[in-house]
């Protein structure tokens, strides 16, 4: 992508801090300086680019202005596609978002319906993957009680924590809980009335105590008993609950493997 520039703007490669505000600042810069983003790189994803490099410092006010223009120029749904798009596992995430924005700024909200356009289609599919994964995890996440605090670990492909937040805060309004995303190394913390999503390099849940082990054993017993032998259908189970989620799920651990292993990618 990036070869269909009809504006005649020079092409540049942005380096930014990897945050959403940082990305929006790049968009702002691009339009103010009339230059077209042809590559993005954030810390930890070094890239060699053919285009002249432009480091961009995050500017909250500029970011805010871009963010607030999105619902107006692209419709609320379009704005959501962009904010969610930034959380996806799309390989060329920033570039895809930028290309979509360029198209959307030109054509307005109607662009959302044009799924036959590659730029819209790619982003839409990635966002569906994100919301799909978040939906599955609402069910598949397993908490353990650690001295009264509920603790869970997940290994999602997309950054699902912002999407899980409202759900779990509404589900456990009076509890304190932590969800740690091992893939992206960030954590969601909640206690009544307060929440935060913060980067966290290292996190390791403590081993289960006696009462926690008893609960897990009860759940495993229920899980195995409720299945009807005469309908055994492991393939169907796998379709609905892909194997890559099993690693963090209580029902697939045994007493000895109970302490979840550190990040491990089954696929």
């Amino acid at each position, binding site marked *: 992508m990036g070869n269909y520039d009809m504006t005649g703007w020079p092409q540049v490669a942005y380096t930014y801090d990897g945050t959403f505000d940082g990305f929006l600042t790049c968009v702002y810069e691009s339009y103010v300086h009339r230059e077209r983003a042809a590559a993005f790189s954030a810390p930890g994803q070094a890239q060699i680019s053919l285009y002249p490099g432009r480091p961009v410092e995050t500017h909250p006010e500029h970011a805010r202005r871009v963010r607030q223009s999105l619902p107006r120029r692209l419709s609320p749904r379009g704005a959501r596609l962009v904010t969610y798009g930034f959380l996806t596992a799309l390989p060329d995430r920033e570039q895809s978002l930028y290309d979509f924005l360029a198209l959307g700024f030109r054509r307005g909200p109607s662009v959302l319906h044009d799924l036959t356009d590659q730029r819209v289609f790619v982003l839409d599919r990635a966002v569906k993957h994100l919301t799909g994964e978040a939906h599955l995890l*609402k*069910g598949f996440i397993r908490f353990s009680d650690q001295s009264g605090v509920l603790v869970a670990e997940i290994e999602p492909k997309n950054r699902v924590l912002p999407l899980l937040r409202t759900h779990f805060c509404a589900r456990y309004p009076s509890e304190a809980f932590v969800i740690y995303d091992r893939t992206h190394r960030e954590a969601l913390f909640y206690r009544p009335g307060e929440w935060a999503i913060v980067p966290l390099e290292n996190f390791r849940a403590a081993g289960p105590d006696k009462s926690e082990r008893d609960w897990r054993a009860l759940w495993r017993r*229920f899980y195995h008993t409720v299945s009807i032998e005469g*309908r055994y*259908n492991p393939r169907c189970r796998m379709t609905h609950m892909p194997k890559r989620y099993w690693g963090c799920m209580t029902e697939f651990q045994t007493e000895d493997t109970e302490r979840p292993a550190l990040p491990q990618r089954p696929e």
Partner: protein
Amino acid sequence: MELMDKLTILTDAAKYDAACTSSGLDRAGRPGTMGSTMAAGCCHSFSADGRCISLLKVLLTNRCIYDCQYCVNRRSNDVRRTAFTPRELCELTIGFYRRNYIEGLFLSSAVWGSPDKTTELMIETLRLLREEYAFGGYIHAKAIPGAAPLLTHRLGLLADRLSVNIELPSEQSLGLLAPDKAKTSILTPMAQIRDGIAASKGELALSRKAPKFAPAGQSTQMIVGATPETDFQILRLTEGLYKKYQLKRVFFSAYMPVSNSKLLPAPQGFKPPLLREHRLYQADWLLRFYHFEASELLDEAHPNFNPLVDPKCSWALAHPEFFPVEVNTADYEVLLRVPGVGVTSARRILSARRWGALTFAGLKKLGVVLKRAQYFLTCSGKTAEGLRVKEDGILRHLVALERPMLSREAPEQLSLFEETG
């Protein structure tokens, strides 16, 4: 008895019930409480048989005064019997719910002592759970036929969904296999629950504080393959239940050979009719979301589904005059009748074609699966490229598409999120 043993016995006794959904209601948690519900429902796990686990599905007790032949809990069956105390059930529900194992509780029961006594115990459990434990998660309760209407009413004020099992697809079969239960005693609470839901909706329209009665609606289930009814009979009954009792869902459960009774299929070598159950669920989708009627899908001359193709394909093959359908002009209702085109695809087609004529490549991008649909569609008058099949060849192609599923031991069960094409 240990809690672990009770859990094992009372889960084992409850597992044949097909319903395990937690859908139909959006309710956020409030400060000081525990739990919320999602309208779409939520699967927390899938058991080795591929079924969704959403709720803690257990019986309050498997002690039963009745002797229904098709049921593992029948009085004459020699199994271990036990009962949860209301407190034990609350602790289990909360312990599982906090860990996100479940979306709530599905409480059913055998008939212990009398329908009234059983219902009273269920009420006591749910009252504790809602009041003392401040539980706001999903509760599905099974109403016990024969219980006093006042008790059923109280149960419905505590539960989100109520169900009464119709058990078998005809009155004759019910009379034969469950002599203690009469059809009327099943339909009476069903009607009462329907009226209770309607009344509660009316009151809620006047005051938001009015008590909610079974706000996620009513469902039922029946066993398929234990008795001689045809698919047509079953589907017509299903349609009638939706219309007359405004049910949210009718569930089908392939009979599992749990009895040696002469009145039932012999357990030796018996294969539960899973494919048949699957076809019935597909047809059920067509009734609920695709504006089909039972009499369009089957009739006295063809009272059973063709196991080789899904009901929508069967219908399409029997109605060549309806096809091909032109993607760029057809109405929503017409698009829905095309095999392979579901509700989502039909909506996407409508919205995308406003921006220009759709081609087969465009359809693919929209996520429309063309495997089946290509035989029945044109795009601006053109058929799919490279597609050269005579009408009599279409059936062969469609059957070939289903072969991978048919060759497996058991067909996939439809999940909440899946659409029949």
